């Protein structure tokens, strides 16, 4: 798998997030550390998309709902987290989007034979797995899924290398 620059950007973003966590409190529980590591990694990989994909926007918006994540998200993505009021606006426009999607369906089928026969349950399951998937049509869903999988693989690859490196260094670390 290539994606070298993507891996580098993810690593850079991820470390930014991890550094923030370190500066808070040396006496964090392992549970808090785990949460910080995973959250930083998720925001980091989503930020590599620069809001160009829906899954990445949905992931960050979801994390933004928890106010305590605000600093982390802003540090990693370099963007300001919208105030709670404007998050409501985003939710409102999702409703409008859903309404117009329904209207479109009544006017004409979205795609042809094969699309109609894509098994609904499979699509439903996929929509639940991809962040922001619920509001997508079939074609967008597949496009977003492709990008999401590529990003997940980068995330797993870099996190895995970090774990391996940390593992190997343990005998040389003073605890």
């Amino acid at each position, binding site marked *: 798998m290539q994606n070298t620059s993507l891996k580098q950007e993810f690593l850079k973003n991820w470390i930014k997030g991890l550094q923030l*966590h370190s500066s808070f409190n040396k006496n964090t529980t*392992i549970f808090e*550390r785990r949460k910080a590591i995973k959250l930083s990694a998720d925001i980091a990989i989503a930020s590599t998309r620069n809001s160009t994909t829906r899954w990445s926007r949905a992931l960050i918006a979801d994390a933004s709902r928890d106010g305590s994540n605000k600093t982390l998200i802003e540090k990693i993505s370099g963007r300001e987290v919208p105030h709670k009021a404007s998050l409501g606006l985003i939710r409102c426009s999702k409703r409008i989007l859903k309404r117009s999607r329904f209207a479109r369906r009544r006017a004409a089928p979205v795609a042809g034979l094969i699309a109609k026969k894509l098994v609904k349950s499979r699509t439903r399951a996929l929509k639940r797995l991809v962040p922001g998937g619920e509001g997508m049509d079939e074609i967008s869903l597949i*496009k977003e*899924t492709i990008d999401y999988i590529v990003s997940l693989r980068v995330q*797993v690859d870099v996190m895995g*290398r970090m774990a391996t490196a940390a593992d190997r260094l343990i005998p040389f670390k003073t605890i």
Partner: protein
Amino acid sequence: MSNRRSRAHQSSGSSRISDDQIIELVSKLHQLLPEINRGRGRRSNKASANKVLQETCNYIRSLHREVDNLSDRLSQLLSTIDAESPEAAIIRTLI
């Protein structure tokens, strides 16, 4: 963009365009999936699209699990993390 145009006309020509688009996307997705589950030969488009979607869901779930497992491992291995840490330096040279 061609989607919007083809949706406006209900001719069979437009549904062929959308079908092709979906076939192409599904096959791109198919190429991302792990080798093991690809199976042999091509059955009907419908069946393989269904299978691809199923394998995709399984694959995404397994990637999510890997992220969780790695987060668990890392929380045990890393006490403080900073840019100067030896781990970060090693990763940078590897990427």
